[in-house]
C-alpha cells in the first residue's frame, strides 16, 4: 500500500503477515527436530525461524529475506561452545582466571558484537539487495566498553548516554546496498526513555545500597528495625516492583521510537506510529499467557509482538524505492554471531 502525502513524498506502510498458528507449527517442528537430533538441528531451526519472521515483513509488496547458512552457524556454535567450555573450566579451576577471563571477555566483547552485526546485516536482504554493517571494532570498543566505563564514574546516572552511543554505532554504520543509513536522535529522548525504562533499577540499587550501608553487614538489621520504618519501606518496594513490571512496556515503546524515528536510508526515513496503550496490552497479555501455558504461547507472543512492531512503522521518501543500488562486501562467517549469542550479549535489533 502506498499513497502520496505531498507532491514529492510517498508513504510506504510496512506490513507483517505472519500468523500465530503457522509460526506455532514451525516452532514445534523446530523443537521436535532439535530434540530428536540432540541439538544438531538447532542452526537449521534458527534459519527456518528467521526466514519465516523475515519473509513476512514486506514493504511495497516485496518481503525481507534471511540468507544465513545453517552449516556455517553450526560450525560457529561448535567454536563458541568450545570457547565457553575452555573459559568455564579455566575460571572455575584457576582463581586468577576469574580476573583474566573477565578482562578477555571485555576485550572480546566489541569484536563479537561487530562481527555479529556484520553477519546479521549481511544475511538480510530486500529486493535482492543485501544490507551491510560497516562499523569498525575500534568504534565498537568506544561505544561498548570505553564510554560505558566512563559512565560508571557517574554511579550509572548517565547510563542513557551509553544507550545513545550503542544506537549510533549500531545504526549509523548500517547500509542498504550502497546507501548508508543515517541516524539522529536528540540525547534528551534517550534520557527520558532510559530513566523510565530502567530507572527502577537505580531506585532498587540505591535502596539496597542504603540498607547495606546502614546495616553495616549485620544480617539481622531488618529484624531490629522499628516496625514503623518497615511500613515506610513497603510502599517503596511496591513502587519498585510495579515499575519493574511496567519497564517491559516502556522498553518496547521507547526502543521502537528511538530506533525508527531517527533512522534514514538515503532520502527515505522511517517514522514510528506506535502508541503506548497497545504496548501495555501486548506486554501484559503475552506475559500472562506465556506463564499460563508454561511457555508454549511463546510463538504466538512473538508473532503478536512482531505485528505490533512492524505495522507501526512507516517508510517515507521521494517516490518509489526502485533506485537503491547493490554494493559488494565479502561474506561474513557466523562465528561472531553465535559466540555473541552464546555469551548472552544483547545485540538484537
Amino acid at each position: 500500500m502506498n499513497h502520496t502525502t505531498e507532491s514529492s513524498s510517498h508513504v510506504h506502510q510496512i506490513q507483517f503477515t505472519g500468523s500465530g498458528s503457522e509460526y506455532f507449527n514451525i516452532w514445534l517442528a523446530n523443537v521436535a527436530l532439535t530434540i530428536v537430533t540432540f541439538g544438531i538441528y538447532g542452526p537449521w531451526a534458527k534459519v527456518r525461524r528467521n526466514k519465516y519472521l523475515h519473509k513476512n515483513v514486506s514493504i511495497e509488496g516485496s518481503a525481507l529475506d534471511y540468507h544465513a547458512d545453517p552449516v556455517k552457524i553450526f560450525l560457529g556454535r561448535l567454536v563458541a561452545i568450545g570457547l565457553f567450555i575452555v573459559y568455564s573450566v579455566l575460571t572455575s579451576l584457576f582463581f586468577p582466571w576469574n580476573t583474566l577471563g573477565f578482562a578477555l571477555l571485555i576485550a572480546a566483547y566489541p569484536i563479537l558484537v561487530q562481527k555479529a552485526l556484520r553477519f546479521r546485516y549481511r544475511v538480510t536482504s530486500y529486493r535482492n539487495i543485501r544490507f551491510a554493517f560497516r562499523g569498525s571494532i575500534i568504534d565498537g570498543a568506544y561505544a561498548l566498553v570505553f564510554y560505558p566505563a566512563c559512565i560508571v564514574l557517574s554511579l550509572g546516572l548517565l547510563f542513557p548516554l551509553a544507550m545513545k552511543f550503542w544506537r549510533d554505532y549500531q545504526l549509523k554504520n548500517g547500509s542498504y546496498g550502497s546507501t548508508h543509513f543515517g541516524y539522529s536522535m536528540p540525547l534528551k529522548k534517550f534520557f527520558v526513555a532510559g530513566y523510565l525504562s530502567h530507572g527502577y533499577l537505580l531506585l532498587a540499587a540505591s535502596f539496597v545500597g542504603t540498607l547495606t550501608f546502614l546495616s553495616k553487614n549485620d544480617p539481622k538489621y531488618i529484624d531490629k528495625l522499628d516496625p514503623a520504618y518497615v511500613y515506610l519501606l513497603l510502599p517503596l518496594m511496591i513502587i519498585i516492583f510495579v515499575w519493574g513490571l511496567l519497564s517491559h512496556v516502556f522498553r518496547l515503546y521507547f526502543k521502537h521510537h528511538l530506533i525508527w524515528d531517527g533512522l534514514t536510508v538515503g532520502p527515505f526515513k522511517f517514522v514510528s506510529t506506535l502508541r503506548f496503550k497497545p504496548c501495555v496490552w501486548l506486554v501484559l497479555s503475552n506475559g500472562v499467557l506465556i506463564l499460563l501455558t508454561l511457555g508454549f504461547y511463546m510463538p504466538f507472543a512473538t508473532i503478536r509482538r512482531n505485528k505490533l512492531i512492524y505495522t507501526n512503522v512507516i517508510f517515507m521518501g521521494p517516490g518509489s524505492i526502485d533506485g537503491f543500488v547493490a554494493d559488494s562486501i565479502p561474506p561474513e562467517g557466523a562465528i561472531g554471531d553465535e559466540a555473541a549469542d552464546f555469551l548472552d550479549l544483547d545485540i538484537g535489533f
Partner: protein
Amino acid sequence: MKALLFDGRSSKAEEVKLSVSNEILMVERPLSSKSYHVDDIQIEDAFGASPLVLILNSGERIEVPTARTAVDLGLVRNKKIVRFLERGFRGFLVSVALMAFGLTVIALVVVPEFITVIERILPENVFDLVDEGTLRTLDNALFESTNLSEEDREKILQSFKEFLKKAGQEDDVTILFRSTERTFPNALTLAGHTIIVTDDLVKLYKEDNADMVSAILFHELGHHRLGHARKALIQASLFTVFIGLFTGDFSNTALQMTGAIYQLKFSREQEFAADKFALEILTESGADPRNYTTALKKLEEKVRGRAFSHNKEAYEILSWVQTHPSTSERLERAEKIIQGLTK
C-alpha cells in the same frame, strides 16, 4: 504466471511472465526472454504469506506471489519432512510425538550415560580443584570459621575414622568444620573429597555422642562414594550447554522443565542411596544402624518440625517437587534396609 524479478544490482522490480515446459522455466521480460533448466534454479517455497522465490544461477531473484510451491508452477519437487511437520494437524501430531519421544530418550538414556562417561574420563584432581573454588565461594558467602573446640572436632574425627577402619573402608575424605547462622544444621559433600559439617549439626548431637555425627557423616560419605555431587555438577553443566545454548530455540519451556523434574527425581534417588550406604557401613563396623535413623529424626525435628512430614496429603502433592524425600519416607525405607541387614 506473473512474477517480479530483482536483478541483484538495484532494488528495481521488473514484471516478468513465467511458463514451464518439460522442466524448463521460461522467463519472459518486456524486451527479451530466457530459459533455465530446473536444476539451475534454487526454489524456496512460500513461507507464510510470503511469495514463492526462484533464485536463478545468474543471481537474479524471482518472486511469484500467486504460487505456494514449485508444483504450482508445474515443477516436481521432492516432499521434505520439515515441510510436512510444519504444516497441518498431522504435522503437529507427529511433532508432538517426536518431541515426547526425544525428551524421554534424552532424560532416561542419553543424560545418565553421558554423565557416567564424563565422570570416568575427568581426572580426579579436577574435582579437588573444583572443591577449592567451591569452598572459597562458600567461605566468602556463607560460612565462617568453626567455633568448636579442638577437642570436640578431634573426637568426631576419631569416631568417624574408627568406624571406617572397623568397616574396612578407605579414609579418602577431608572433613571440614564451619559455622554459619544462614542455614539449618547441615552437612554437605563437594564434588572432590571434601565434606563440610556445620557447628550447629555437631551441637545438635552434643547430648548424644560422636557416633551420631559419624552416622550423618556416613550418609555424606555415601554421596561421595556414589559420585552424586560430581554427577550433579556434570549434569548442571550439560543442561546448561545442551538446552540453554545448543537448541537456542525454545529456552524456558518443555525440555528445561523435563530437565528440572528429572533433577528432582535424580536427587531423591541419591538421598535414598546415600541412606542405604550409611546403614551398611554402620552395620559392617559393628555399630547400631539405628544410630542413623535416630540422628535423622532428631535433625528433622530441628529443621522442619514434625507436623509437615506426617501430613500425608500434603506429602503426596509435594513429594513430586521435593529434591529430598520426606524424612518419614526415608525412615520407612531405612527400617526395611536395617531389617534386611540384621537378619
